[in-house]
């Protein structure tokens, strides 16, 4: 089906926003990355707002969107609810970040992390449709979630490198990025195997399509393996942490966008007939 670019933006930005705030929340719990908690939360807030705006451009009649408030139990209603609640949590965190006690900051950050996770899962779950066999798997929202994690970690990594953060913290974030990229590769491979091994003939064309090449070359190669190799080099990570983090973020974004383009292309329905 046709690529819905406004929704590609929406899913990428909400993923990045939720991921960046999760990075801040983890920082609160572990007591590190103090210098980037505020900028991290600001990036999250901006990404979530921009993502929300992008989704509005997808609608032919945006003014009628207020009616969604009367149907919050629908998949799009859940997306809206979790987006609004995550935004409130991030805004609340920014309000207490300087003056609030550690306990209050932790509580709000944890709430935001949970809401952001639910937001990303809700966004992914809207695509789990019986009518689209290649989407009808929970590996799809799971791949959105792990992509959000990777984007968030690299955002935090870049902010930490920019603020010339503590070398030990930078090393810690570097290791976290490596773990997240391995997890992303695992989830993407499991998703691909799930689609490839399905017996449904409607999904079979996916295997021979150009999309498969894009999957291996761009999503796994450029978007996952390349940032992994960049982050894996201890000397490079120590010498140019900003370069590693910024390049990793850009590559993860490229992988995420192309992954979504593939998703729309393989999102074919069942053949009609008997």
């Amino acid at each position, binding site marked *: *089906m046709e690529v*819905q670019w406004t929704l590609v933006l929406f899913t990428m930005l909400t993923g990045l926003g939720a991921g960046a705030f999760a990075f801040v929340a983890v920082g609160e719990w572990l007591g590190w990355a103090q210098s980037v908690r505020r900028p991290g939360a600001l990036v999250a807030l901006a990404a979530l707002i921009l993502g929300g705006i992008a989704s509005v451009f*997808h*609608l*032919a*009649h*945006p003014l*009628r*969107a207020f*009616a*969604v408030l*009367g*149907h919050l139990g*629908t*998949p*799009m*209603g859940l997306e809206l609810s979790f987006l609004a609640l995550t935004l409130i949590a991030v805004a609340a965190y920014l309000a207490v970040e300087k003056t609030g006690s550690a306990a209050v900051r932790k509580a709000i950050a944890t709430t935001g992390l949970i809401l952001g996770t639910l937001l990303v899962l809700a966004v992914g779950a*809207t695509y789990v*449709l*019986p*009518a*689209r066999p290649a989407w009808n798997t929970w590996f799809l929202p799971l791949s959105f979630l792990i992509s959000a994690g990777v984007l968030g970690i690299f955002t935090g990594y870049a902010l930490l490198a920019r603020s010339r953060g503590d070398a030990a913290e930078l090393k810690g974030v570097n290791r976290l990025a490596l773990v997240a990229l391995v997890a992303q590769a695992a989830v993407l491979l499991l998703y691909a195997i799930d689609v490839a091994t399905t017996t449904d003939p409607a999904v079979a064309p996916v295997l021979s399509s150009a999309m498969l090449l894009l999957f291996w070359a761009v999503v796994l190669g450029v978007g996952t393996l390349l940032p992994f190799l960049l982050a894996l080099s201890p000397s490079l990570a120590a010498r140019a942490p900003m370069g590693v983090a910024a390049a990793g973020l850009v590559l993860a974004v490229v992988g995420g966008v192309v992954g979504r383009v593939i998703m729309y292309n393989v*999102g074919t*329905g*069942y053949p*009609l*007939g*008997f």
Partner: protein
Amino acid sequence: MRYGMVIDLKRCIGCNSCTVACKQANGTPPGDLRTKVLTMEVGRYPHTKLEFIPVLCNHCEEPECVRLCPVGASAKQENGIVTIDPDKCLGCGYCEMACPYGARTLIKKTTGYFGEHGLSTYEQARYAEHPEGVVDKCDFCADRVARGELPVCVVTCGAGARIFGDLDDPTSEVSRLIAEENGVPMHPELGLKPQVYYIHR
């Protein structure tokens, strides 16, 4: 009361009279087909044949489109017909994505059939019923049915391949055909309980 349709594929000759009659009766713009006839090649050369499969909204008993609609524009009526309220539709296209039968069309821009000449007077009048940015689909000709008439595709079919009636009435022709001729819905495995049945053997 639960309206449904039986389509006898052994009778369909692929003439598309139903497609044309539907377009004329409902005044749908280019690209919007509430019903159409798929032409499928069956078998391997030289033992091949053409099979014609009319498709339309299946008015599912458990419609995904109604469950997912974020503004309640899609609704299941008491008589089983699935309808769209064009004044509520957001134009998000989610129902179009969720329909396994490809029965829904999001009208993005209403262009006429006469290119640079613009919309004809007829088109201007009829396309007002199908605003831009709204999803359209078959409603079993709900206005005609409310008047006690049959959907226009049923009336037009020269081969008598489309039969319309009450699935809750065991004595109706649709119920009889489903029982006696082994009428089956398309993709029942999806669990949406479609109300359009096909006789194909």
